[in-house]
């Protein structure tokens, strides 16, 4: 239930507006959309687990929940850096595939957003892992569809004023209409 709703109904891009920057920025090619999606899932899972553990066992124990924003962003920023160096050492192949997208993720609001959403929804650890995984998959899924549409768009005659970002946004709106109808399933 959590999985399905995170994947389709609460789709992070189209209904919650998180991660729009990479959505518009890197979705011009299918390969880069895939790479970015994978990198986001990877980082999101690690950072959500770490921030969840930190929040429940450190911040709540000492009654300093108001430090949430500061702690989370620092954890995410340093985690991204760490993942990058770690991947470079351990698995150069994976690093080559995800490498250029990793630094971009620090400023991806989806990662911080999901970390905060996990806390404010009051999930336990297992629910949190499921939710985060499927949010990430939803991100990948929509990015991939969107990048396919944009590849086709390159060959289509588009009015001059709509070139680039405006037409991409209109297409995103059409995708969002489709996804908003899925809400009726449950």
């Amino acid at each position: 239930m959590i999985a399905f709703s995170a994947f389709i109904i609460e789709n992070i891009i189209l209904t919650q507006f998180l991660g729009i920057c990479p959505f518009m920025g890197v979705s011009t090619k299918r390969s880069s959309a895939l790479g970015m999606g994978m990198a986001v899932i990877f980082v999101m899972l690690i950072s959500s687990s770490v921030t969840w553990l930190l929040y429940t066992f450190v911040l709540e124990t000492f009654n300093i929940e108001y430090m949430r924003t500061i702690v989370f962003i620092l954890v995410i920023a340093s985690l991204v850096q760490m993942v990058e160096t770690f991947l470079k050492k351990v698995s150069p192949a994976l690093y080559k595939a995800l490498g250029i997208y990793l630094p971009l993720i620090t400023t991806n609001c989806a990662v911080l957003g999901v970390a905060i959403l996990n806390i404010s929804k009051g999930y336990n650890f297992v629910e949190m892992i499921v939710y985060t995984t499927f949010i990430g998959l939803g991100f990948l899924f929509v990015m991939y569809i969107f990048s396919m549409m944009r590849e086709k768009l390159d060959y289509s005659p588009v009015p001059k004023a709509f070139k680039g970002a405006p037409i991409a946004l209109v297409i995103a709106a059409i995708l969002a209409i489709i996804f908003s109808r899925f809400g009726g399933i449950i």
Partner: protein
Amino acid sequence: MNKKENFLKGFIKENPLFVSLLGMCPSLAVTTSLENAIGMTMGVFFVLVLSNLIISLIMSNPKLAVLVKPVRIPVYIVVIATLVTIVEMVMHAFVIDLYRALGVFIPLIVVNCIILGRAEAFASSNKPVDSLIDGVGMALGYGAAIMLISIFREFLGKGTLTIWGDLQLNLTFIFNFLKIEPIAMFIQPVGAFLAFGLILAGITAIANNHKNKLAKEVTNNG
């Protein structure tokens, strides 16, 4: 560049939202009503102006600057995150409705590219006074942009314009006059993308027109 130009560039020439396409996530999410857009603007204004000021104060002090330079991004993030926490707590204490409406997007001001972008691109290499002016201009330019989107969306979606609480402008008579219903789609997520896309296209069209005019004048004069 004089002070007035520095202030005004945030509105049109370097508008963070429409020209640089920075900070899109919150601008799509909180523009369901004018009230939310105004609240968001105040939050961004506070954070952006103070972070610009503090960072340029740090960086214009030669001793501190040497110390901070290698770790400047984490330093910026800590400064910004502290300011955002202040905003969050103040909103929670005094305007709880707004706090609920904006939800996760208040802590997300931290990762708003505009703020970190201005810190890196402007505040770190300019004087405190100029950075302060830059911050005010950029924040107001951003505010004007999200208010424009929210006016568009709230008017088409509900036929009203909420300024603050009960202070509401009821424009439904226009819809009654035209004998149509407000288009509820515009206050749903779908409308955000559509409205932003259309406004952006409109602005591009105006800009293109302006450019063409300038080009014609040049050729006529030459």
